[in-house]
């Protein structure tokens, strides 16, 4: 069984949104067009927790996505990523091997010198991978994101996060210092002018402590983390080729989530300004402007690794620099994902994800 065919299989079902090279598959799998049989996000639906922390098998794709900006006692910067993707071949769940749900995990640790990546793929239905809403647990093999909150409390408020691969691993404890934040219009996040959308909420207020295990030894770290939850059935419009996505921890305690979906024209941008106490302020489409400052050769392609990000209406004007410009996720569906620092009208740290290059 070649790894390649697994990769392609997953790409067909899930990740069409992540890579332009898979755009051709949209027509084939019908991902870009109406999601036959699958549910479609509708505006005005309110999140129901803890149920919405769990899987939504009637939607085609879904993810539990954590990024963490970490620092060792000596000031060395690190980044960590933990992601669980769900992809459905059919809008249902079943027990046993006949389950149409596929799961994929990505884990990464970024240093200024190295970028460690691992991937896991599993079928649903037998317990090898899955998500339980309460008490919260998301796992694939021995990678796990486990909630420690008591029943009834916010299940995502206190998490432990582990992933181990051949040459790296980590054990992190995440404690929320703020509330869950719905993105877009009360969690209805528009992805194109044509109406493609997803359900999207975040927990951007984690304080992190824990340890990384690297080939050079174990490192105790502290820092900040951000969790994204998103599910949809038709995340991209037909002409969209990929996205550039920012999650920023401002030194003022405020947060900013912003993305641009690239197409043949201007692109579609969207952003949410989050106050230090967790109130979201969704910005109108087009309010966010992003311009590449510098590109670098990464995995044989030209990728913008430094960006100018502006929100003119708010006097927000920063330039980002990556911790490691080679933060390439050489997984089945490759993309760039890594920690960044930024300076300008305000400074801080965050994560950048770029797909479809």
């Amino acid at each position, binding site marked *: *069984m070649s790894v390649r065919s697994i990769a392609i299989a997953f790409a067909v079902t899930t990740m069409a949104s992540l890579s332009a090279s898979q755009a051709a598959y949209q027509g084939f799998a019908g991902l870009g067009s109406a999601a036959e049989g699958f549910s479609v996000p509708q505006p005005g639906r309110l999140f129901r927790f803890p149920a919405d922390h769990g899987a939504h098998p009637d939607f085609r794709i879904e993810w539990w996505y954590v990024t963490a900006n970490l620092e060792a006692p000596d000031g060395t910067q690190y980044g960590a990523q933990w992601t669980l993707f769900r992809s459905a071949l059919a809008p249902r769940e079943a027990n046993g091997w006949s389950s149409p749900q596929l799961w994929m995990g990505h884990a990464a640790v970024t240093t200024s010198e190295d970028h460690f990546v691992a991937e896991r793929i599993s079928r649903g239905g037998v317990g090898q991978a899955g998500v339980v809403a309460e008490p919260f647990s998301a796992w694939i*093999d021995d990678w796990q994101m486990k909630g420690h909150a008591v029943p009834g409390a916010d299940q995502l408020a206190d998490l432990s996060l582990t992933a181990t691969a051949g040459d790296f691993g980590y054990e992190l404890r995440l404690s929320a210092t703020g509330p869950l934040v719905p993105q877009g219009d009360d969690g209805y996040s528009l992805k194109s002018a044509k109406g493609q959308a997803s359900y999207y909420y975040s927990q951007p207020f984690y304080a992190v402590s824990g340890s990384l295990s690297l080939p050079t030894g174990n490192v105790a770290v502290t820092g900040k983390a951000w969790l994204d939850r998103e599910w949809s059935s038709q995340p991209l419009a037909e002409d969209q080729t990929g996205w550039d996505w920012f999650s920023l921890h401002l030194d003022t305690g405020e947060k900013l989530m912003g993305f641009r979906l690239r197409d043949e024209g201007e692109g579609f941008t969207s952003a949410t300004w989050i106050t230090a106490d967790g109130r979201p302020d969704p910005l109108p489409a087009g309010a966010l402007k992003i311009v590449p400052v510098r590109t670098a050769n990464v995995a044989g392609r030209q990728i913008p690794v430094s960006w100018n990000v502006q929100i003119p209406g708010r006097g927000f004007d920063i330039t980002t620099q990556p911790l490691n410009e080679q933060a390439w996720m050489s997984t089945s569906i490759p993309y760039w994902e890594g920690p960044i620092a930024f300076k300008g009208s305000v400074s801080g740290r965050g994560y950048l994800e770029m797909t479809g290059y």
Partner: protein
Amino acid sequence: MTMWTAATALLSHWRRRPLQLGALLSGLALATALWSGVQAINAEARASYARAAAVLDQNGLAHLVSPNGRAIPQSAFVRLRRAGWNVSPVLEGEYRFGTTRLRVIGIEPLTMPAETDTVDLGNAEDLLSFITPPGIVVVSPGTAEKIRGQTDLALRVSDRMLDGAAFIDIGLAQRLLRREGELSRIVIAENQRPGLEPLGTLVPTLSVRESNAQSDVEHLTESFHLNLTAFGFLAFAVGLLIVYSTIGLAFEQRRPTFRTLRCLGVSLRALAVLLLSELVLFALAAGAVGVAIGYLVASLLLPGVAATLEGLYGASVPGTLSLRPEWWVSGFAIAVAGTLVSSAQSLLRLMRVPLLAAAQPQAWGRSSQAGRRFQVLAAAALLALSGALLLWADGLQAGFGVLGCLLLGASLLLPAVLSSLLTLMQRTSSRALVTWFWADARQQLPGLSLALMALLLALAANVGVGTMVSSFRLTFIGWLDQRLAAELYVAARNEGEADRLRTWLAAKVESVLPIVSVDAEVRGQPMQIFGVVDDPTYRKHWPLIVGIPDVWDWVASGEGVLVNEQFWRRERLSIGDELDLASDWKAAVVGVYSDYGNPKGQVIAGISALTSRYPHVSRLRYGLRVKPDQVADLRSSLSDEFGLPPENILDQAALKEQSRRIFDRTFLVTGALNIFTLGVAALAMFSSLLTLSEMRLPQLAPVWAMGVTRRDLALLELLRTLVLWLATFIAALPLGLALAWVLLAVVNVEAFGWRLPMHIFPYEWVRLGLVALAAAVVSVFIPLRRLAGLAPSELLKVFANER
């Protein structure tokens, strides 16, 4: 003078001697053919073992298995994955697609380690169709042929699949086999991350079955391939002897040409380069023909080889050959290398012998006294080594060592023995022509000895292997009579039917013998444990080799078990040794029975002892004892009452016939190889005689001049060849019997685990003798016809003053 002119001069030799060229090329082609043919067969078989290992054993990775052969719960797999172990589940079983039973192997492609190289599902669509209901069945082309139309499932054909097996998704396997949530074993990938919790604490009820570096099949078939390789090498060596003698003669005959060329300014280096190019050219031409013939030989032999491997070892090898590019390369390589090796001496002589030394074609091939003495000493040493290996060494390699040394030693001794014999004959004769007849035969001996040695080897191999196979057959047939004692064998289709069958049969037959078996692991070896009822049939007929008194009482009580001969020998068991048959079952070995044709070990226990430890054992098959005249009636009422299909009811005669057919098919390839070897020996003889006939004139002319007619001379030549053949044939008989004895008593025991009594079949020798005689007459025919039709002027040239 240009090189081209020199080349033309050199090559013109062959135009004048087309037969010599023919001998050279055919010797080389034949050597290449048999060598590459045998290599092709071995390669094909090895490829299919690799395929089998990939399909059935996941390339020899370690597995987690349940020691009692019980199913493994799927939760164990999930527990291991969640603890970080890189493992993959497998569920195996027999499933009937229409009328075809297949071994279905349910795998989980997403977790199956890449190194298992199981099956390439190609693109994503196929992978998704494979894991998504209804699923895909991956089978070999041959199996697809059989089950097409018999199943609603989509088939996918893979060349890398094994016949009779099918890959399906684990989920589909659980549905088809009705074993939801169960696994047969769990494959453990080689790559595991550090710091894992030990298996012993995670899944304490499972045990790890370590991989063998070599699969069981490969191990078992090793002797067969060694055997085949030996035959191939023998033929190759004989072919090269032909090349050696032909090239040697051609060099001597061309010495005047060399001299002329050198005198005309062609440097020694240029001459050597020319000759070398000539040889390489011949080698390439003959190599091409050889590989083509080799392919033909291999594709002719392969069905037989496949039958042998299937029959003797249960190894499945397809009967068709795929053309591999590496053969062409290796075929040409071996042809060129063989040519260079066998012409090295001639080339060296060319470089060393002074320019003006006279040509000595007559002396070519005549070995020196010292050479002959060395040969006898070497022969003695080899024979001594053979004896020493026989007495003091162990193992299959040693067995083949005994064979090799014996054959080589005997053949090296042959010229000396024949020479002494001819000297003796010459001494005892007083008539001039008779004396000359023996003297001349002795003088020709050096030139013929290589061919005679080849003939000795071929004849001895024929006698030896023939005796082995015939002895085996005789023993096997007798053993079948004992083993297949029940008159009728019937298989129910399910347990319910089996129950009804038992009740129904109870009143109709003398006794019902259930055939109950489980797959188990005993002393680390996979094998079957059979359960038998206490019945006079076994007490009277079962072919025991050794056994304690009241052996069947011990078996019936469950305290004793019988083991088959191969397991007994392999494990060096003794009566009274205890075997662990299950976690809660120990029993003592009380007897040993012969079990020919079974590659694996086997244990026979009392049926109640077996079923109490393995309660869910299948009880579908029964042997029935009835009066022979009732067989037909019972058979028809079985199919009337139960609607059993014909393949579920087998009578003894049909089973025996089937076994006999399989046996005969099994040794078809041995017979074919024997004929091939004999053919090469005949060709060697022919080419030697042809070579000698070129030098015969000066030897025959004086006798002719003194009043012996050409016709009488030709007759004497024929007689002389026949006498040498006969002497070699007689020498081959004891050598062949020795070979047979080593095969039966040493090699078979090591290779198969059973020892067979030797029987002697003189009638077969007569037949072989006639075949050999025919070959002798054919080989001598052309040289002889040339001699008989010789013009007197040709003979007179010998004496001509102008010479």
